[in-house]
């Protein structure tokens, strides 16, 4: 097929796909490879896509490259879990450590728009104290950011994505009203609500990046529940359909199926552009600044792969911290059976949430916090959980799947600690582009294990209180990636400063989930986008002062 976006780039010849119309196109400005653009951005996900938009709107020339395809959701997305695996980053990677991570579907995307194309849309703000975790709560490290400033950028992102959220959010300092109203809570969410009310803790409809009323060409969500395999109606406000169309309109160029293998630098040590693979050969895009935004595995991999005689340990790595302090989030669950029909797959998977244990510091034997949410696993994923976690196979698995419509679960997003031993390094094996692949090493620490145990026990009580029976624990799951290029105030203990600018090379920036010093107990994408908006404002300010 000539129009298979997995094989042939679509953003060519002065046009890019119109993601909001079947078969549509929009004009796209293009830059010459030999013209040094103001910014070459590697990755178009929550970090890179947002930054590309903001910088282009501020008048900078921007080329954003992504290794993934440029989808038109209305044309390209099937209601088929298996087929939609095409959205995941499934290139070769090696995992090890005491608790090797399962990489792919649940933590990395490979698409223009990044992981947000198949993310679950949960859009939460950090608890303010987390930005000063060390000084306020006694664990991890402090961020170089102030929560009050972040509060403004959160509002900007919430408005850009028209987040649908509750009229009053029960936790944390006052926040402006969510631009759209919360979605109706499905039966699975109501089970969470009943459990929470029985245990006397607050719950809320989850703030989600999928619209509850029409927005432009996005129809309101129709509750098909296929969100994590890619929304085929465009109700989901992913980076692909929000920031990137804006970026194109503002004059950014987006290059799909463009895998960056190396960031080059000159003799003075400043970066000069990116070497990337597209349409069958290696190319070079000159740039005055390079932003790496490939997420917490590909970002350190690219920096390490760009090692040179001048930077033998990789770029921006004088601290030795590139690749270190990789953090996932705990994603354990309790599952049970309700007598009444639940049909948890209906609607976005996490329609109800409690952040109780993010905002309560007593009654805990661990540092950090967790949120838990209602769940709506699709059938294939669910049969996978049943077989791998409970060892069901053959007739017992078939019998259990008969009860799919009655199963219900609660799952945490839990804060795990930054540890230097959890890291991304380079392996000897090479991938399809001939680049060394990454080795991802991960082990829980004792605090992590205590947090998980606490959450499982608590969620079990909640599920019991809501009337579920046959309750069992899913103990082995993680989600989200963060860290590996942390931000900080000190070049010795961090890779970038608060502006996401690398300490070592002034025209090299990192703007994605990698810069998190700690993860908190909420899903990260809203914070990543807020940081990108802040970074854009900082870059604009620095440029005005001629300090780029």
């Amino acid at each position, binding site marked *: 097929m000539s129009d298979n976006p997995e094989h042939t780039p679509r953003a060519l010849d002065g046009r890019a796909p119109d993601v909001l119309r079947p078969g549509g196109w929009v004009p796209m400005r293009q830059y010459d490879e030999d013209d040094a653009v103001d910014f070459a951005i590697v990755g178009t996900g929550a970090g890179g896509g947002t930054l590309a938009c903001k910088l282009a709107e501020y008048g900078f020339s921007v080329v954003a490259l992504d290794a993934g395809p440029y989808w038109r959701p209305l044309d390209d997305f099937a209601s088929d879990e298996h087929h939609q695996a095409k959205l995941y980053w499934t290139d070769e990677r090696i995992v090890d450590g005491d608790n090797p991570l399962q990489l792919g579907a649940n933590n990395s995307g490979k698409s223009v728009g990044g992981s947000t194309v198949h993310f679950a849309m949960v859009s939460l703000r950090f608890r303010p104290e987390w930005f000063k975790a060390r000084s306020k709560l006694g664990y991890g490290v402090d961020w170089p950011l102030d929560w009050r400033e972040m509060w403004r950028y959160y509002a900007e992102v919430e408005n850009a994505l*028209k987040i649908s959220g*509750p*009229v*009053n959010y029960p936790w944390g300092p006052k926040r402006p009203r969510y*631009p*759209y*109203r*919360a979605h*109706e*809570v499905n039966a699975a969410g*109501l089970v969470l*609500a*009943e459990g929470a*009310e*029985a245990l006397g803790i607050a*719950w809320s*409809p989850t703030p989600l990046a999928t619209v*509850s*009323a*029409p*927005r432009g060409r996005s*129809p*309101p969500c*129709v509750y098909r529940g296929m969100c994590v395999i890619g929304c085929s*109606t465009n*109700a989901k406000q992913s980076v692909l359909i929000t920031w990137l169309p804006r970026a194109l309109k503002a004059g950014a160029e987006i290059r799909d199926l463009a895998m960056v293998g190396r960031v080059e630098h000159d003799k003075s040590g400043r970066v000069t552009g990116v070497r990337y693979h597209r349409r069958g050969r290696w190319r070079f895009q000159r740039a005055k600044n390079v932003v790496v935004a490939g997420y917490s595995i590909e970002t350190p991999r690219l920096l390490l792969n760009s090692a040179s005689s001048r930077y033998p340990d990789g770029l921006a790595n004088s601290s030795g911290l590139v690749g270190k302090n990789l953090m996932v989030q705990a994603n354990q669950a309790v599952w049970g059976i309700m007598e009444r029909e639940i049909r948890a797959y209906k609607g976005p998977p996490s329609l109800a949430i409690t952040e109780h244990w993010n905002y309560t510091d007593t009654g805990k034997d661990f540092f950090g916090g967790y949120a838990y949410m209602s769940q709506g696993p699709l059938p294939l994923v669910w049969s996978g959980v049943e077989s791998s976690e409970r060892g069901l196979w053959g007739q017992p698995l078939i019998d259990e799947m008969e009860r799919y419509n009655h199963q219900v679960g609660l799952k945490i997003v839990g804060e795990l600690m930054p540890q230097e031993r959890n890291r991304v390094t380079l392996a000897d094996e090479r991938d399809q582009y001939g680049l060394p692949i990454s080795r991802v090493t991960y082990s829980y620490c004792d605090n992590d294990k205590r947090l998980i145990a606490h959450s499982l026990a608590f969620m079990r009580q909640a599920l019991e209180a809501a009337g579920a029976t046959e309750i069992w624990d899913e103990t082995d799951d993680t989600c989200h990636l963060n860290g590996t290029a942390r931000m900080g105030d000190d070049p010795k203990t961090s890779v970038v400063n608060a502006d996401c600018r690398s300490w070592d090379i002034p025209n090299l920036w990192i703007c994605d989930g990698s810069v998190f010093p700690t993860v908190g107990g909420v899903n990260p994408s809203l914070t990543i986008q807020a940081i990108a908006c802040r970074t854009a404002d900082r870059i604009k300010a620095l440029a005005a002062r001629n300090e780029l």
Partner: protein
Amino acid sequence: MTRADPTLDLIANAALAGAAVLLVARPRLIARVARSPLLPTTRDVAVAAARLIAPPAPPPLHWRVAKVRELARLVGKYSPARLRSTRDIVKKAARRLNGSTALLAFLVLADSAVEHYRGSFANRAMYTPLAIAALTLAGSVFGLADARPNRHAVRDGIYAVAAVTGLAGLCFHAYNILKRPGGLSWLNLFYAAPIGAPFALTLAGLLGRGAERVRDVLPRRRPTILGMPAGRTLAAVSAVGLAGTVGEAGLLHFRGAFQDPAMVLPVTVPPVAAALLGAAALRPTLKTNRLARRWLKLTALLGMGGVGFHIFGVARNMGGWRNWSQNVLNGPPLPAPPSFTGLALAGLAALSLIEDETDA
């Protein structure tokens, strides 16, 4: 509130089933109950309220002057030309009231059919508003076609049942909201049974009864309701109805995040009309009446225009009108906006009665 209470459910269902059986088995009894103007308590309250809002008595005049004035008034009032014009105005108003009752009943029928179908008629009681609204509609069409001036016991009875059914529906919807986790919360107000919807049936019933009362006057008398001039009572009812409808539109448009600027119209135009109509009910003056008339007409137009907006709103759902069977259920309700039209027309009818009353 955490769980649905099965006992409560049972009681509510039994009560409704009882009412339904009674309706079919003992229509006479129902009619007799219905013939007493609304229910005694409601009536007492209404009379008291009416007395409260009645304008204060004018200062006493010298008895001679008063006599002469009274004589002049009577001569004017009972002059054949005046009588004829009053008769015409009253007849027209009665027909208009019949018309708005028919419109409201039709809207309730359409809306409850769509919404309760969407709710899979999970509870048998959900058929009730369909049946009663259909009866009310039939009664009003009959009323329109009926050239005889007298009120009609069956129509009157149907309207009373409609008014009471609307109130029962209100209780059902309130119960539906309160039984969910979160109880009285924004979420439940948005997505549980719409709290204001059944009220439309009550309004249809009240206006229908108003129409009956208005047409049923001797040629020499002006209609009254609950001891008040009919025009003013009906204006008050329509104003309250408009206000309630504004509340409902406001709630649902807030749920829709006022994503289209036109969504502000129903919370800006009709409130003005309702306020002016209310003012006309309390203290009719030439100026208020004229203003009220203008805003009511605008509101009536807006109600019809709203259908157009809602048709467009349905189109903005996934699959648009090609996927009508889903989107008519999911999109903005098509029968909702003309409630404004129905109430505005009733308000206009009430105004013409008021004008006739005041220049008497």
